[in-house]
């Protein structure tokens, strides 16, 4: 195994190239965003914050940022308790119908998002939810639920339900025993699930393209429109900030998960 055969060498070279291909686009964005040039040139010209200034000084981008943050936060606040209670019921109940329910709750991962988006658009058009904040939040709650449920179910798998039984036999009611005994032990998977729901809402684009409008357009919709017209390095600045935000959130989530394990 240790001697470097030609096959092994080829494996190293191919894998290294694939890994470069994977991370190159992630690495290229930050340099563009800090460059003073409109296009990326070699050698890179001077360092500049002009694209960040353009972003922060533009009321339309700022409004979109507020929409994105509001939607993502509300999504977490709603999707997390819904997902936790659903995951708890799925893992504890012996009802046979729960298997079907479980499958249905994962539907957002199975149905191609473009289909979901168009369908929601038609339904929203009938009930007047197009271009509204509640409409945007509801759609993102639906899309974020599977992440919370998967994460919490994984957490509950290593939890012994007998502990909750003990608490109840000692006189706690069901709700109290859940909050006192179960929740503290699955806390890290709950937090991780919430973080994934936040990132999912922050990055969601396709549904927003169809159902958002007016003053309630999230960042991604404005970015998409801007990208279709012209390559403006302001997008590099926004992308850098968004990427930094997701990476920090993922690190936070995985740190919590490790602590919980």
């Amino acid at each position: 195994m240790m001697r470097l055969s030609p096959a092994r060498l080829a494996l190293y070279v191919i894998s290294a190239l694939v890994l470069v291909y994977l991370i190159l686009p992630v690495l290229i964005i930050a340099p563009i965003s800090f460059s003073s040039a409109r296009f990326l040139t070699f050698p890179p010209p001077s360092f500049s914050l002009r694209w960040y200034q353009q972003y922060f000084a533009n009321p339309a981008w700022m409004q979109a940022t507020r929409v994105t943050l509001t939607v993502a936060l509300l999504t977490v606040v709603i999707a997390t308790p819904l997902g936790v209670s659903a995951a708890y019921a799925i893992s504890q109940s012996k009802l046979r119908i729960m298997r079907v329910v479980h499958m249905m709750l994962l539907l957002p991962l199975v149905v191609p998002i473009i289909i979901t988006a168009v369908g929601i658009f038609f339904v929203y058009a009938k009930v007047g939810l197009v271009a509204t904040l509640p409409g945007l939040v509801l759609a993102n709650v639906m899309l974020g639920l599977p992440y919370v449920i998967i994460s919490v179910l994984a957490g509950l798998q290593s939890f012994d339900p007998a502990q909750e039984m003990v608490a109840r036999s000692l006189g706690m009611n069901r709700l109290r025993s859940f909050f006192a005994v179960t929740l503290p032990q699955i806390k890290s998977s709950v937090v991780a699930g919430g973080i994934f729901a936040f990132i999912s809402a922050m990055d969601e684009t396709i549904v927003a393209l169809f159902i958002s409008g007016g003053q309630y357009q999230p960042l991604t919709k404005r970015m998409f429109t801007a990208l279709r017209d012209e390559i403006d390095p302001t997008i590099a600045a926004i992308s850098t900030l968004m990427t930094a935000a997701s990476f920090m959130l993922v690190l936070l989530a995985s740190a919590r998960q490790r602590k919980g394990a």
Partner: protein
Amino acid sequence: MTSTPDPSQKQQRREHGLMLALVSPALLVILALIVLPVGWLAWQSIYHDGFTLENYRRVFTEDIYWRSFALTFEISLAVTGIALLLGYPVAYLANSVPKGWSILILSLVVLPFWTGVLVRAYAWLALLQRTGVINQLLRYLDVTSEPLALVHNTFGAVVATVHILLPFMVLPLYATMQKIPSDLMQAGASLGASPSLTFVRVFLPLSLPGVLAGCTMVFVLCLGFYITPELLGGGRTVMVSMLVSRNVELYNQFGAASAVAVVLLASVLLIFAVVSRFISLDRILGQK
């Protein structure tokens, strides 16, 4: 067991009621925001002032529709094939190196995962456009004299799509390879087989469930891909998802859009149904 006393039966019924109550808010959201909308599409595809199959007739007979479906399947097949060719060596390497290295490799694989799809579309535009990084590098190295058309065509769309879907290939492959006992390879070697023969006869067949899981996920996701082909395909690569969106946004052809969506969804569900006969669905979906 058959003659359960009354109180415990009552308790059990209460327990069932509680569990259903706990699951119902989430279920309600799913029903209202995905089951109802998809049902709506299905209804709209066959009903417009009376029942009609006109929309489906168009999808299956009119050129632009079936050509778009054919193109989407072709691109999805190509993307799946490329992702397998690129992903297999990486998963194999991650599986055969010490723990620290494999964590590093897998982190690099999932790193782009957490970068938004739009962000990466932008990055590929910046890399591949006529004045982009790749073209400048090629000019600088004197490989080309004219900038190559790397983006706003099928090539650009495929490069960026493979990039986005590659983690969905590598992760199930790695998960499967991890479960292959390494003594099997040693046994092969001790029986005198060359490393390449043990790989082909022992390792490769045992990794096939991972290949199937990864290929299914990549293929199915690619069938419904929208943002990347729209931004990098240059308008000529009209995938099914773009057909749906154009019919809604530009032409107000709601019935036709719905029929296309239903056919696309049916294809996806059919693929899942066929594949789930060989490997469990959890195995395909379990990977985030």
